[in-house]
């Protein structure tokens, strides 16, 4: 009898341990994921990442002959000590280590009266001759200059010079600057952020009215007949379709629509249209759930006051269901931000710094795919974007929870 008791206790303890162990495993995976993403991405997380283009642009600038001579420009008082300042040309440089572990020399600041303010573009093209602002963050690839003896020399990253060396060379040797070869920093995700915003806006613009109208029809108007049952089944089946299949649908069914509007390749509008269909079941379900919670008495009261069904829906039912509809919108935004497979098909994987509705582009998630699927996966950038997506999705989820609680509270 006693051994039996002990055996039971042992087996109970073991089983309980198993459940605890499983839960700990889940916590462990989540922690590992967050740790990995944050440890690798945080170093890149700064405003430059959000502001910069992905592709860096090279420019060769020259200067106005009339002012192209050294002067005396005192080092600004508030300049950080790490900045190497050229007194004769009025420009400061800094050293910078890129995520590819490359040593870069960046422009930090240019004095307001420096001759370098007269920089203009010499590269062939539409921008030729246009003034160029030598702003902070530009990479100094190469500075060509003339020495006092008239001989030409150069400094900059191509000469493997550090910021201090560049400033020193300019101060000691240059009497005239022939040209500067600058490169914009690149590696940023500005274009993808804009594309993501486009996607969210356009897909919601299409999916919201259709989704809400469908939900209202199904829960307020539809009689229980064959057609309505079929419609409901159709919408429910939509939830189980893998997103990559939506991508196939996008390029085959929806592409002609965007082609009519002048699109030649896959494009952001096509991605948005596809997303709109992916969002439909989400919006319909959350709207319907919210409509179900609205007390029937309010509809009856409205109708008994001589309001038409349309008036009742727009003035009473939908406003009361607002928290639910809102949480549907938030869930949808989360879905758009996280979606990748369908968008890879419908928008392509070309990272576009100047996205337009009928042009290719990448959302943040597709941007990750794009930098991960190349020969040299860029883990840092992928993790940095992942951090942004994670934080965004987290905020959305918290907001949804809050709204759900409010919806339930307001009627009980």
């Amino acid at each position, binding site marked *: 009898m006693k051994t039996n008791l002990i055996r039971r206790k042992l087996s109970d303890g073991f089983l309980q341990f198993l459940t605890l162990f499983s839960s700990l495993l889940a916590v462990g995976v989540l922690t590992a994921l967050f740790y990995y993403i944050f440890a690798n991405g945080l170093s890149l997380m700064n405003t430059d990442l959000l502001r910069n283009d992905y592709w860096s642009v090279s420019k060769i600038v020259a200067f106005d002959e009339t002012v192209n001579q050294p002067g005396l420009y005192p080092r600004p008082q508030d300049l950080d000590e790490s900045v190497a300042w050229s007194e004769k040309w009025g420009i400061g440089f800094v050293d910078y280590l890129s995520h590819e572990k490359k040593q870069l020399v960046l422009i930090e600041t240019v004095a307001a009266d420096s001759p370098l303010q007269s920089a203009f573009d010499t590269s062939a093209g539409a921008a030729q001759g246009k003034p160029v602002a030598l702003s902070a963050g530009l990479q100094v690839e190469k500075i060509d200059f003339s020495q006092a003896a008239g001989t030409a020399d150069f400094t900059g990253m191509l000469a493997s010079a550090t910021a201090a060396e560049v400033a020193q060379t300019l101060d000691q040797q240059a009497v005239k600057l022939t040209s500067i070869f600058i490169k914009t920093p690149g590696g940023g995700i500005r274009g993808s952020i804009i594309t993501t915003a486009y996607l969210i806006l356009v897909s919601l613009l299409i999916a919201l009215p259709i989704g809400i109208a469908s939900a209202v029809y199904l829960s307020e108007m539809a009689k229980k007949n064959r057609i309505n049952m079929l419609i409901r089944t159709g919408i429910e089946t939509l939830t189980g379709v893998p997103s990559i299949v939506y991508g196939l649908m996008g390029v085959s069914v929806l592409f002609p629509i965007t082609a009519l509007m002048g699109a030649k390749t896959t494009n952001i509008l096509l991605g948005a249209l596809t997303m709109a269909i992916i969002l439909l079941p989400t919006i319909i379900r959350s709207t319907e759930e919210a409509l179900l919670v609205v007390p029937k008495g309010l509809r009856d009261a409205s109708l008994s006051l001589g309001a038409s069904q349309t008036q009742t829906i727009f003035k009473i039912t939908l406003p009361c269901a607002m928290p639910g509809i809102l949480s549907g919108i938030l869930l949808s935004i989360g879905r758009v931000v996280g979606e990748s497979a369908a968008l890879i098909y419908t928008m392509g994987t070309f990272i576009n710094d100047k996205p337009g509705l009928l042009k290719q582009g990448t959302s943040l998630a597709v941007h990750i795919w794009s930098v991960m699927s190349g020969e040299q996966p860029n883990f840092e950038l992928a993790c940095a974007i992942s951090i942004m997506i994670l934080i965004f999705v987290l905020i959305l*989820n918290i907001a949804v929870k809050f709204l759900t609680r409010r919806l339930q509270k307001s009627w009980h």
Partner: protein
Amino acid sequence: MEENLRDWIKPGQAIRKQKTDRAVRTLFFLAALISGSCIVLITFFILMKGIQPFLPNYAYGTVSLKDFLFGTLWRQDQGVYGVGFIVINTLISAFGALLLAFPISVLTALFIVKIAPKPIKPFMKTVVELLASIPSVVYGVFAAGVITTLVKTLAAYSGISTAGGSSLLAVILLLAIMIFPTITSLSITAIEAVDRDLELGSLALGATATQTHFKVVLTSAKSGIFAGAILGIGRAFGEATAVAMVAGNKLFGPTFNLFDITRTLTSTMLAGLKETTGLDYDIRFSVGLVLMAVILISNLVLNLIKKKVGNMN
């Protein structure tokens, strides 16, 4: 001066309202019809495009349906498209993931609902919700960075070399993590719905709390837990981006070795997206069609099993 509302109501107002009502109802019905018919459109168009390469007068040279369905070689560059081994790979990775995730999910759900102390419950629920809300591409980055390293180390211990960790095992581990929240949250719902009286009955018969949880609660929640598994495996079949990051895309197969690279239907569909016309493009729809068929058939089979299992008691 007192005015009466009646004098202000314009004649014909009520008739106008009826007309608007009718118009709005039609409009809303049309919206619902659009939403409901999307699935039909999707199926129809993918079917149309997907069967094209097998039709006799296909522009880029007809592909033999038999070779396609039962082929064991996928060489886009040589125009050889055999999807047979890919289907097997897909089944292996999805069911492998289910095998791994299912017990862990159910045990975690049991822990959350029945065993965990009160303050830990909401924490664990949040963990599951968080895991569910992480987008697949982020899982992909995690898999490419962490899971592959794990697999590589594991392989090195056994003296096997891997393709940088990309392997069937990596896919299974990744998918297991990704379907874990789906199965867990459905299991939680199922376990929470179990009648308290059943438990009390078991306890009254002298069973310990733990015995009751494992024998009575889990058995009663069986059908809901199974539904979670079905949903989970659906997600495993359809998962694309994350899987494509660690699958390695083997050219022939099927792959049975855990440390060997593999190729799933979805990773095939994402590989080599350069062409926009021709057989290479169209065949992707055929693969999509096979994917939908695999999901549909496994859903049917699993639902049949679910019914059988559900009827046993």
